[in-house]
């Protein structure tokens, strides 16, 4: 267990460095990005004097390093800000205030995160089922019609952008067949049934994109395992094909699949931009793209950090699971 603790400690330190670097990169990149932040925030018809006032208020006149220092301070000790009529406190870790909406970025993230996580978790279950199922079938029935068909379907998932799949699905399933409602996010805590019902289509659309990767990985790992000596052992002992495939070959695919899954999960938390946009799910990705477009630096930095956090965490979890799944692996 001390080994695990050491691993966690090392990973946490690494994650901190990574996140720190990410925040610096985002700060610099969005500093040089075009767009007069104060003018955008104030409105296009604002007078130069007003724009100047707004810029003052957002500390846009301060040098970059000072603004970054301010950001770091907020993270550690929080930040006080004025609403005009009163002074509010944004508790640590404070990621600052949105230029656009004046909301605390941490609060904004907390409201968006459940949506993104709902989307990604559900989609994950589906892509695992679809992907691994297809992979198993195609490794088993290698070269047969079923395999070709399944491979074709999953590849179509990769080849077709989500905004095409999602829209066509929505038109057909919700509009014409009326099998499902047009998706509209309902919080899990409000109504779990409606939550699932409304997210079904987004889950499916997102899963369809990812499934192919899992199918390919599962298939490759299983074929690899099937070529290994221990499979020969079990065949030589009369163990049935079903058990060889389902118990031994699939077990070989387990580790790579959880690893890829963790990787994609982390990425999808912020990466499902198109799915969120199309289905009108108010998640991290959608908010982030909006924030990028209006150069809302605090929101961009905050959300990119959250995404980075999930990527780092997911990868660490993958490595732990990997080590648990395959005891030969040493955690470093």
């Amino acid at each position, binding site marked *: 267990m001390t080994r695990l603790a050491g691993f966690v400690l090392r990973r946490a330190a690494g994650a901190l460095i990574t996140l720190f670097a990410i925040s610096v990169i985002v700060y610099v990149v969005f500093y040089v*990005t*075009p*767009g*007069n932040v104060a*003018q*955008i*925030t*104030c*409105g*296009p*018809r*604002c*007078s*130069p*004097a*007003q*724009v100047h*006032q*707004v810029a*003052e*208020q957002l500390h846009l006149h301060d040098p970059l390093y000072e603004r970054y220092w301010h950001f770091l301070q907020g993270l550690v000790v929080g930040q006080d800000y*004025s*609403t*005009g*009529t*009163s002074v*509010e406190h944004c508790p640590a870790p404070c990621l600052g205030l*949105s230029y*656009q*909406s*004046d*909301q605390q970025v941490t609060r*904004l993230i907390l*409201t*968006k995160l459940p949506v993104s996580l709902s989307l990604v978790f559900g989609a994950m279950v589906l892509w695992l089922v679809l992907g691994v199922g297809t992979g198993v079938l195609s490794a088993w029935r290698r070269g047969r019609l079923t395999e070709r068909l399944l491979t074709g379907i999953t590849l179509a998932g990769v080849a077709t952008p989500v905004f095409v799949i999602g*829209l066509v699905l*929505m*038109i057909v399933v*919700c*509009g014409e067949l*009326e099998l499902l*409602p*047009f998706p*509209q996010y309902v919080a899990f805590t409000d109504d779990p049934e409606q939550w699932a019902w409304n997210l079904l289509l987004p889950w499916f659309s997102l899963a369809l994109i990812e499934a192919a990767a899992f199918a390919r990985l599962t298939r490759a790992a299983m074929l690899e395992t099937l070529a290994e000596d221990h499979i020969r052992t079990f065949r030589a002992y009369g163990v049935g094909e079903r058990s060889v495939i389902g118990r031994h070959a699939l077990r070989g695919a387990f580790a790579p699949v959880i690893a890829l899954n963790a990787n994609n999960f982390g990425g999808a938390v912020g990466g499902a931009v198109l799915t969120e*946009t*199309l*289905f*009108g*799910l*108010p998640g991290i990705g*959608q908010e982030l*793209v*909006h924030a990028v*477009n*209006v*150069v809302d630096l605090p929101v961009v930095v905050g959300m990119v950090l959250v995404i980075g956090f999930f990527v780092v965490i997911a990868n660490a979890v993958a490595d732990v699971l990997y080590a648990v799944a395959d005891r030969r692996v040493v955690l470093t």
Partner: protein
Amino acid sequence: MRQPSLTARRVAAASVGLVLAAGAAACGPKDNDAKGAGGDSTPHKGGTLTVLNSNPQQDFDPARLYTSGGGNVPSLVFRTLTTRNRENGAAGAEVVPDLATDTGRPNKDATVWTYTLKKGLKYEDGTAITAADVKYGIERSFAAELSGGAPYLRDWLIGGADYEGPYKDKGGLDSIETPDARTIVFHLDKPEGEFPYLATQTQFTPVPKAKDTGTKYEEHPVSSGPYKVVSNENDGERVVLERNTYWSASTDAERKAYPDRIDVRSGLDSSVINQRLAASQGADAAAVTTDTNLGPAELAKVTGDKELAARVGTGHFGYTNYIAFNPTIKPFDNVKVRQAISYAVDRSSVVNAAGGSALAEPATTFLPDQKSFGHTPYDLFPAGRSGNAAKARQLLEEAGYENGLTITLTHSNSRDFETSPEIATAIQDALKKAGITVELQGLEENDYSDTIHDVKSEPGFFLAHWGADWPSGGPFLAPIFDGRQIVKDGANFNTGLLNDKTVNAEIDAINKLTDLDAAAKRWGALDKKIGEQALTVPLFHPVYKRLYGQDIKNVVISDWTGVLDISQVAVK
């Protein structure tokens, strides 16, 4: 206005850029066929109206909203001194009293405007609305924290340019007087005959000082209208309104307020909104949209379906898409070159790129073709349907470009139908026939906006658009052509850098008029006169076509906003 979201190209297509994005309001189709769509039954109170929008109802604070005529959703919560007339067509472009007893009483040269509040006006908590609250509401809009509104108050009120709002400047703005609880007097630094139009904007909403929470006020603004905010999630992502029981229909002739509850949902993809409205299932049967147009693809489908076609509201908002020239840059300093381009433009392919003849009407005048703008028809450089290349070549020869000309057209890369690459390409294609080689310079939206509105970086030849802050020539022509509105160190909208004494003088003269009909005529004449300088090439005026759900009744679409007015809609 706030920048429209670039999130989805279709979102941008839906939200008609400049002045409308924050939520315009309005009423019935020109041809008055809207009533037929709602069926023959009369509207009744009750039910929930759903609003499906692309853009969130951001900054739901009367100080921060940039609206034309008080907006659509905002107008349900915020009453203003005056408001727009909730009638179909041209009648809807008139100003009518709201909180005030009339549309304002000017002094002789229209520099002092006096309003009296109606009796019995109450907030959602039952307290009385006072003139001081209206004054405070206006003062708030000067605070840097609450920026976002239209520039007129700052420009017009005496001392407005230097006032920093009530949080910094406790003394208040002296040019607004409230001699008693029901009277409010505005002192302007020059004559402004269109002040009643300005008083429709949400900055003229009363805000009780004791309830002011600064930047957090938007989470729960105190209602003076028929509905109050029950919840406002994530800066307008979802806004739920319910009846304000202290609102009395007897003090409000404009808002019908049939539904009991209004549920505004946003962040939806525009094609999804249209699919949902077309399907009209469940709650969507009682749904409308205030910001999403039918796209060309959807229009192709809708026109083939009678049931759907009957559920389309058509409207016109004062709006013009045009090519802008910067005459300080060669070769656009040469009026013949500008004229040649005006002749060469192929408006039919531009209109197609903008969605076809049902969604865009070719424009030869800068002013929108509506009566309230004083529209005077003219076509100074007749290009016909698809351009007059011969005439263009001839002019180019005269200008010394007999061997043709290579120029750069700047446009935004965002895929909306106003400054979109497709329109730029259509122009490129048409000018080719006249021997003009056009190179396209597509910029990202923010970059584009910064570039064209900065006199230092303004390109010579670019796509632009302008919308009405209210349906009159004033806010349409003055910011673009008034030489005194050229801004050297900030956002400049006089992109032609026109500083013509006669034009400036005429603008001042019209502003003195308090007879709005008379003023309109002279705006029309001025438009034609400015048009002779060929500083712009008007391309088209957009047409709004919007679907609504099956249960929607009492559809009113005015020429003021061009879209269905949700204060009139009933779902039962």
